[in-house]
């Protein structure tokens, strides 16, 4: 098997986090990351990125938008009958 480098470890990170990497590849990646300071930091920031974006983009729908949606829908004909 090809030696695990940072590059081919990074290439399979998503499969790794999704749990679909075969066991042998998985342990090869873990061995490499365990011994590589740069990869440890990389994996940490890779996992941190979605969390930061998720928290920074949480929004609540303003009530007025809900009211406008409701007004628009009640003005429509019976559901399922409009083929336009």
């Amino acid at each position, binding site marked *: 098997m090809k030696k695990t*480098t*940072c*590059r*081919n470890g*990074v290439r399979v*990170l*998503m*499969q790794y986090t*999704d749990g*679909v990497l075969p066991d042998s590849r998985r342990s090869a990646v873990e061995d490499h990351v365990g011994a*590589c300071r*740069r*990869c440890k*930091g*990389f994996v*940490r*920031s*890779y996992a*941190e*990125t*979605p969390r*930061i*974006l*998720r*928290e*920074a*983009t*949480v*929004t*609540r*729908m*303003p009530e007025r*938008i*809900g009211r*406008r*949606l*409701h007004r*628009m*829908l009640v003005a*429509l004909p*019976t*559901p*399922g*009958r*409009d*083929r*336009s």
Partner: protein
Amino acid sequence: MKGTTIAFSDEALARRAMAGDRSAFETLVERHQERVYRLARRLTRSPADAEEVLQETFLRAYRRLSSFRGEAEFSTWLYRIATNAARMLHRGRARHPTAPLDEYLPRFDRQGMHARDVDHGRAADAEEILDRKYLARRAKEALERLPERYRTPFVLRDLEEMPTAEVASVLEVSNEVVRQRVHRARLMLRGYLSHLVGVEP
């Protein structure tokens, strides 16, 4: 009648709505409007655009109820309509020129080992990291700069936290395509937000 429909599944409500039960459709709207709006807000540039996507989503769902066959979950079908509505909205507008994020992808040396990250600017100070408005602005910029083919799967998978298989079903692509696109999005965003995610040079 309104209070009595709440215990029905989405699919059962959709069937009732198809048969002409207006309150069943209203219940579906109440159940999903908040999440569709949040998704729309993450896929578009402004609250006005998000509202347009929200309205368009439920309008199309309402008109196309008869095409809902129950093969996928109702929510998957609805989010497919929402992501298509967001895509159509972007297509109909003049494109904002944005520099690609490729320069933020990780770099490796000839042996395949991590090269030093490019210094994309000063690191954020602690106050900025704690400033919610600053974070929201940077996050928004980052998402806007992502090409649509990466943004939509990333938003569904990582921000809406849908399982990969459900994202694949919404976008009608394979699980592997979702993984490839989400992965590339994460790599670009990680580099772009390096001053916030603690990237070591």
